[in-house]
């Protein structure tokens, strides 16, 4: 873990706007580079075209925690859904490790276990126990035997401090614990990318801070690329290697802020002066966009 601590990594030179700074992704992660190139998404629900994503290009190197920050309803989730394969894009392309997910000739990506979404309100199946939820992906794939899968699931639960809740249903455990189960469920499939859609939005701030540390701890053990949507700046700076601040609808990167606070981090980071400097830098931009979104009468959501 300490190797990661203060290593400076030269950023992928194809990246649009970034600089080589401390705290960037660890080099041992080789899978999970996302390249979003000139993506446009236009919704056309009732004849009136609404542009949700406007010529958006973002490069995310493998193993980075990339925080997508923007006002509510700016179209961040649209971008996430396009990567996950929940809907199509109008133009542009998205590649994962050089492989086309969606783009010309293939407007909609196929959902797959290399990119797993952790949903805003949580999507553990309430009718399956925590253990069954965690075993779900491998069970569906059917490559391993049931007992191998359950053994792996049990040991992953133990690693994440979830022992003893295997036979509980998600509805029986606390919401913070549910989020952890959901992350473990995703990690069971060895994904390249985890896509977080404001997963901690509904949590109170104390639970949230515990969840942030837990997430980082899981990340240090299982390095994956993390695409994390939020509108909480504190959360974004605490977790991320990099903040991509999005403009209000249509969604497009407005400013990129590198968080040069070395990983591993814990909550003491929040009171550091560097944290406050980055906060100040980001806050101005975010506020401006939020104001624009407010003026445009964007609905909360």
């Amino acid at each position, binding site marked *: 873990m300490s190797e990661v601590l203060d290593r400076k990594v030269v950023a992928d030179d194809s990246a649009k706007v970034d600089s080589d700074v401390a705290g960037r992704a660890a080099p041992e992660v080789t899978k999970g580079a996302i390249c979003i190139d000139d993506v446009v998404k236009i919704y056309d629900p009732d004849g009136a075209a609404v542009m949700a994503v406007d010529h958006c290009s973002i490069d995310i190197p493998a193993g980075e925690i990339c925080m997508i920050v923007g006002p509510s309803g700016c179209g961040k989730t649209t971008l996430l859904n396009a990567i996950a394969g929940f809907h199509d894009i109008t133009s542009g392309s998205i590649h994962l490790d050089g492989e086309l997910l969606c783009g010309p000739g293939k407007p909609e990506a196929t959902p797959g276990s290399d990119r797993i979404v952790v949903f805003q309100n949580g999507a553990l199946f309430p009718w399956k126990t925590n253990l069954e939820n965690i075993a779900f992906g491998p069970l569906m794939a059917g490559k391993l035997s049931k007992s191998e899968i359950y053994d792996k699931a049990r040991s992953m639960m133990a690693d994440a401090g979830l022992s003893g809740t295997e036979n509980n*249903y998600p*509805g029986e455990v606390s919401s913070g614990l549910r989020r952890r189960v959901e992350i473990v469920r995703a990690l069971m499939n060895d994904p390249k990318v985890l896509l977080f859609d404001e997963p901690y939005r509904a949590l109170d701030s104390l639970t949230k801070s515990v969840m942030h540390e837990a997430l980082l701890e899981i990340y240090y053990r299982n390095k994956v690329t993390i695409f994390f949507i939020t509108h909480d700046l504190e959360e974004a700076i605490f977790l991320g290697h990099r903040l991509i601040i999005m403009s209000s609808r249509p969604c497009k990167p407005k400013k990129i802020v590198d968080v040069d606070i070395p990983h591993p981090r814990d909550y003491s980071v929040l009171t550091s002066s560097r944290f406050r400097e980055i906060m100040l830098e980001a806050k101005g931009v975010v506020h401006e966009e939020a104001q624009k979104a407010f003026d445009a009468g964007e609905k909360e959501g």
Partner: protein
Amino acid sequence: MHDTVLNTDAATSQGPEVTTMGLTMYRLSTWLKSPRPYLMFIGFAIVLGFWYLAVEVWKLPRFEDMPGLTEVFGEWFNKDPIYGLSVYTPEYYTHIGISLRRIAYAFLLATGLGVPLGLFLGWSKTFREFIFPLFEVLRPIPILAWVPLAIIIFAGSESPVVFLTFLASFFATTLNTMLGVESIDESYSRAASCLGASRWQVFRHVVIPGAMPYIFTGLQISIGVAWFSLVAGEMVSGQFGLGYLINTSYMMVEYPKIIIGMITLGIVGFASSAMVRVLGDYLMQWRVRELALGD
């Protein structure tokens, strides 16, 4: 038991198993400790007391021809009933048995056809556009309006009754199942496909269990309307059965038998809904446990 069930901070200390039996016993004991069973008893006492007083003591106008409480219960539990029907005569059980058999056939058929149809209606947009409008036109037709057609189409006296009973159940089950599928949060099927589930696996692991609570609400309604249309059917067609008993007793001016038939219908109807509910709880442990812990 109390500790296990009431432990909402289940994360750490929740025992591995909350058994169905344990949960039932726990519920029974809280129920007996609450005022509910006694209020229920008072409710019954008021209605039965009014019946007794109105008919046999006060002899209110319009009530005088009604069979009284003592007369009905006297007949019901009479070893040698005046009108030939009591808990001691085999005929009584023949009526119950035949009604139950009709309900069983109709309910099982309605469930067997209605649940899959409802699941597909909810799952496939094309299928829904094709079938649902037809369904919505047929559904509001009252069961009684189907009686002549049922008698014309189906031979004998048994199948028209089963058909009528089936029909009402079928609509309730199908519609609720469809609503159940529609009620499933899209995140669940998205999450499943993210985790690599095929379309069929999503159907099997998300759509079916996700719709289950609505399906069982539908089955509760379905068994209720089944009894309703069974009696309607038995009154116009068929031999034996509780509806038939009530109708013929009216024709033959054997009034106590009407009331015996009615009360029996109430009891078997209640028992059959309770059975559906117990089955639902058994199949949806996750829901039972969630509700038991929820605050």
